[in-house]
């Protein structure tokens, strides 16, 4: 069998119909995407694009990764492209400005923070981490991915993943300490 034929056969074994892929992975992907964009409607739109893209990039799928890891990788890139886009950056700047103007309102928010349950605090602390730490904490602790798998998904070398995971945990700890101090 020719090499290209083997690869073709492989693709056929691995990739099911698009409907099947959507049934199998849309919920996992949607949560992953949400952890980047923090908005359900945006996450659903991006999810759609991920599935379209996965079919367009089928020729790059070599089979060394499993299909879910591969989809995650496409999703992560999609999210980062989205967050880098001009429109989003403008909106985020706007939100920061609003926060600045309505400082008093922020105190109200702090009050409710104190009433959060332990789980809510943990979720909130992780969700507000800078993206490069949050994504790794998410993939490691929520998805149980290994360092090697994470390095494939976010296209960063394994040592950097390790360093960021360590630093991410430190940041979570510091944030806990800060919140306790303020209490």
């Amino acid at each position, binding site marked *: 069998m020719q090499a290209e034929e083997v690869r073709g056969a492989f693709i056929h074994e691995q990739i099911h119909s*698009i409907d099947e892929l959507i049934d199998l992975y849309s919920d996992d992907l949607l949560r992953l995407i949400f952890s980047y964009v923090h908005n359900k409607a945006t996450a659903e739109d991006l999810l759609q694009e991920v599935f379209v893209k996965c079919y367009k990039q089928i020729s790059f799928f070599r089979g060394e990764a499993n299909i879910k890891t591969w989809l995650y990788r496409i999703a992560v890139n999609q999210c980062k492209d989205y967050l880098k886009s001009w429109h989003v950056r403008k909106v985020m700047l706007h939100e920061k400005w609003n926060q600045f103007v309505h400082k008093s309102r922020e105190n109200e928010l702090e009050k409710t923070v104190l009433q959060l349950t332990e789980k809510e605090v943990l*979720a909130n602390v992780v969700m507000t981490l800078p993206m490069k730490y949050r994504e790794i904490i998410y993939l490691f602790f929520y998805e149980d991915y290994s360092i090697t798998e994470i390095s494939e998904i976010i296209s960063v070398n394994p040592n950097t993943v390790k360093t960021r995971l360590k630093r991410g945990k430190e940041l979570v700890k510091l944030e806990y300490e800060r919140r306790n101090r303020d209490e």
Partner: protein
Amino acid sequence: MRGGTEMNEQLKQLKEAFDSTYFHKVQLSKDRKKQIKRIVREKIAFSYEADVVEEVLLAIKNKALSGFDILKALRLSDRNRFENSEGELYAYLHYLEQERMLIGHWIDVDGSKSKYYSLSTKGIKYLNKLQKVTKSKQVLFNRLEGERT
């Protein structure tokens, strides 16, 4: 406050923590999922070029061919469409199989399995339609060319 190991213990509850808070409503409704399936299929269909589809279907019109044979057949035609992107041809084949335009069979050739493709009834009808469109385009093109000279 907490040591490194304690932090690990804490973070092990992240799944529960996220699922009961942020992710509580992060899931697709049945209708939304259906809608996404439809839109994705439409967008995918749109990204395939009709004349490539026509060539692929034409190549297997008279006999079943393997992906590699189809690639060779397309390379013989002047377009050389998949010269550096053989994988893309398999995307087409997969797509056309999903749409039931062609039927794939695994056949044992000298001890190794190869997939052979043949046209389905739906595929034959579709090919005829495509060829008609191409023909009318050609007629129109010739007429325009004729008018110019």
